[in-house]
């Protein structure tokens, strides 16, 4: 019994320690921002590997999710004779929820895990240590540009996801199920509000980008420098970021749309 309590205490202490380390890490990353902004080439290279390489999976997933939304939405709406509102339903679901959340989850799986593995391996092969000895701060040279790249890419990827999703919904709804083309777009235009829907979606995607990139980079930087340590860190990145995104999404949704 005493042992169990000890273990619980140990576990809690470790979590708080990790939170503390990750906060210091974030601070160190953010204070290097100005230096890195003066060297845009570092950020551009990372935008390519974090953002551009994630585009394909985002487009494909967005298309399919949009198509599924079109199908499901049509089935439900037609029961009420409201199938002409399909465009609103598809767009609202995507812009408010699915766009930011699913993009966040895919981003954590595709870009986050790659970042963690890359940084973890750099640590394991003494590249970070070597940089330190060359008087180059590895956090500013390696971490900060990646952080900025993740932070910038996420909202753009989420926007792309929503856009492709709306087209996917159109493909199924208008193309296959016979919803009126004009109704699909005009109802969407009339009902989707910029501040209420789009802006809130953008805020969500920015927050998710921040969280997912931070977790991925910290897990890599904090990894135990062995193959087992890097593998565990990569798993942690995907699990923790996904849970964090879903949890934070609930809070944000409650604040934005819940009238609380």
């Amino acid at each position, binding site marked *: 019994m005493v042992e169990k309590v000890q273990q619980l205490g140990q576990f809690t202490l470790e979590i708080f320690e990790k939170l503390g380390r990750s906060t210091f890490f974030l601070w160190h990353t953010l204070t290097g921002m100005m230096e890195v902004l003066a060297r845009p080439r570092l950020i551009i290279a990372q935008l390519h590997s974090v953002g551009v390489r994630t585009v394909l999976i985002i487009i494909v997933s967005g298309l399919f999710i949009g198509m599924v939304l079109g199908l499901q939405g049509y089935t439900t709406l037609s029961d009420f004779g409201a199938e002409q509102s399909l465009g609103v339903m598809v767009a609202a679901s995507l812009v408010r929820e699915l766009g930011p959340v699913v993009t966040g989850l895919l981003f954590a799986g595709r870009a986050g895990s790659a970042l963690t593995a890359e940084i973890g391996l*750099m640590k394991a092969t003494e590249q970070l240590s070597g940089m*330190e*000895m*060359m*008087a180059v701060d590895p956090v500013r040279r390696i971490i900060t540009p990646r952080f900025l790249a993740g932070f910038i890419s996420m909202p753009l990827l989420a926007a792309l996801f929503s856009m492709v999703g709306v087209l996917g919904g159109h493909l199924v709804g208008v193309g296959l199920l016979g919803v009126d083309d004009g109704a699909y777009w005009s109802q969407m235009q009339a009902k989707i509000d910029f501040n209420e829907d789009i802006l809130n979606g953008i805020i969500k995607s920015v927050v998710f980008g921040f969280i997912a990139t931070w977790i991925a980079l910290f897990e890599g930087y904090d990894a135990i420098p062995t193959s087992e340590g890097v593998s565990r860190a990569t798993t942690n990145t995907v699990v923790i970021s996904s849970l964090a995104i879903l949890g934070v999404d609930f809070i944000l949704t409650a604040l934005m749309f819940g009238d609380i």
Partner: protein
Amino acid sequence: MIFDGISMEIERGKVTAIMGPSGTGKTTLLKLIGGQLYPQKGIVTIDGQVVHQLNHKGLYKLRKRLGLLFQSGALLTDMTVFENVAFPLREHTELSESMIRSLVLMKLQAVGLRGARDLMPNELSGGMARRVALARAIALDPMMIMYDEPFTGQDPISMGVLVQLIRLLNDALGLTSIIVSHDVQETCAIADYIYLVSGGKVVGRGTPDELRHSDSEWVQQFMNGFADGPVPFHYSARDYADDLVATE
């Protein structure tokens, strides 16, 4: 505790070796010198500056004048050999591209790898990787270079090349070199002075010649690689015969 009451002096312009069995903290010693680890007690002084009393900025300024050659080479795997050697120059100087090119080629020429400039680190052999790392370490013309086990895992030819390079660069560039190693032959061939470290203490010191003729049994065992001596062959255990007849 890793070190206990250890005291060493590294003379300017000389090649000093720190030798000892594996696991005695030789690499830790280099990390203490480079300021990557902090001592609980005692001080490390380089060129009049106490390393662990420097702030972040001061430490980084000092590190620009130090080179550390990691056992693995620690090359940046996403850059070519050329870019690796150019890395410290690009990070710390405002030199023009043509100037950087000339400097990098000169450093690569010094280690004999000018022709390998476009290769990626994963295309290099272990010995070549270490030579590239050496070229990178001398890119900013440091005052001191530290080598962490430079000879481990090298074939005889690469080993010979490295031995020669370390001595040559030290004398030609007026460096101060510290070699951490347990390869007796190679190290004795180039070191001016040797410290033997074991169990956290300095157990022998002197020029290679002095150590070879030392009357300390421990020094003799280490220098000649005897299997048994003050460092016993057997890990401490209870009596052999008792152990065999004992039932668990």
